[in-house]
């Protein structure tokens, strides 16, 4: 799975936000706030087509956290992305 195209991550002040552009802006009228981990997950899925397990592996490589915490964070992130239809369903 990967994040659909036409989303950009920007920083406003000390907030990290995801903003839709082009055809996604016509579909989704809002913004999404992310923390640093969310930013890493988002940017990773923008660049690569990964399974949930592969994504968890990327996080474990980068951060010193428990596998249980990573699984929880990744699941929570993916749930929010699915809710807002940010994931490219063709690749699920």
């Amino acid at each position, binding site marked *: 799975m990967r994040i659909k195209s036409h989303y*950009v991550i*920007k920083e*406003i*002040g*000390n*907030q990290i*936000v995801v*903003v839709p*552009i*082009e*055809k996604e*802006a*016509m579909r989704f*009228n*809002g*913004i999404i*706030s992310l923390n640093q981990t969310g930013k890493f997950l988002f940017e990773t899925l923008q660049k690569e087509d990964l399974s949930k397990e592969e994504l968890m592996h990327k996080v474990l490589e980068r951060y010193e956290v428990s596998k249980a915490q990573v699984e929880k964070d990744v699941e929570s992130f993916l749930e929010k992305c699915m809710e807002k239809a940010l994931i490219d369903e063709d690749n699920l």
Partner: protein
Amino acid sequence: MHRYLKIHDIYIDFNYQFNDFFSSAINAYEIPHLPKNYHQLNVSIKDHIYDDTTDQLLYQNKTRHIYESKTTRTIVTYTNDHQDIKHIITYTKDYKHIHIILNQKLGQRLAEYEYVLTGFMFMEIAVSRNYLPMHASAFSIGGHTMLLSGPSKSGKSTQTRFFKNTFDDMFIINEDKPLLFLKDDQCYAIGSPWSGKDVINNNAVKEVDALFFINQADTLGVYPLTDKEKITHVFKNIQKPLYEHFINHILETINQVIKHVKMYRFDCINEDRSATYLYQFMEGRHENQKPLCN
């Protein structure tokens, strides 16, 4: 009808068909000549409109097809039954040339469509020029300039009416979509000929003292916002650009507006005293409160 307009430093060569909504309010923005850097905004009416573009289809939903080429974009809007085209907007991506074609069959609603669609495209021009169109009522009272912001049906017009009922010296900049811009770390609101269904606007530039996001409540109150809330509220209440190129501009403008404009949640009630309460807040007359401005 044909007018040259100056809205702050946005110049428009405006060709339109109906005076119903623009009436005399547009006179305040008229100038005799245009400089070189202007935007052409034309409206025409046709008996039959066809979607015969050969450009690439970028997006479609039930009633809208959007096409683009290297330099232009075309928005084709259909009727709900998809049997006819209501209007087509074609524009260059730099917004220098905009042409709106309305279907004659829109009949009695032609003037309204013209007003809404030209307003939409004007706001696109404004965004491309680093202005921030806010869904808000902008007005001044007693030396204070404030914006009441909120989406449609949030009570913005009602609260504005309460201010009109209460204060004789109320000066309305724009009752629906003022443009914000920053200069020397100060935020300003300006009017334009496009100002909602009641068409109340003035060709004025005023320094903004505070921005209130209204919230229907049981009791009156004004509350500070976190940075995250400010960004969310502002973003919900602006006309957002479609292109990544303009997103960078607008996010930087939002960043500066958040830094330099005091923002609050205003819990309002459905009574005139909402207006008095908020004015007293601006004056710093609530307990333990300092004035918002000098």
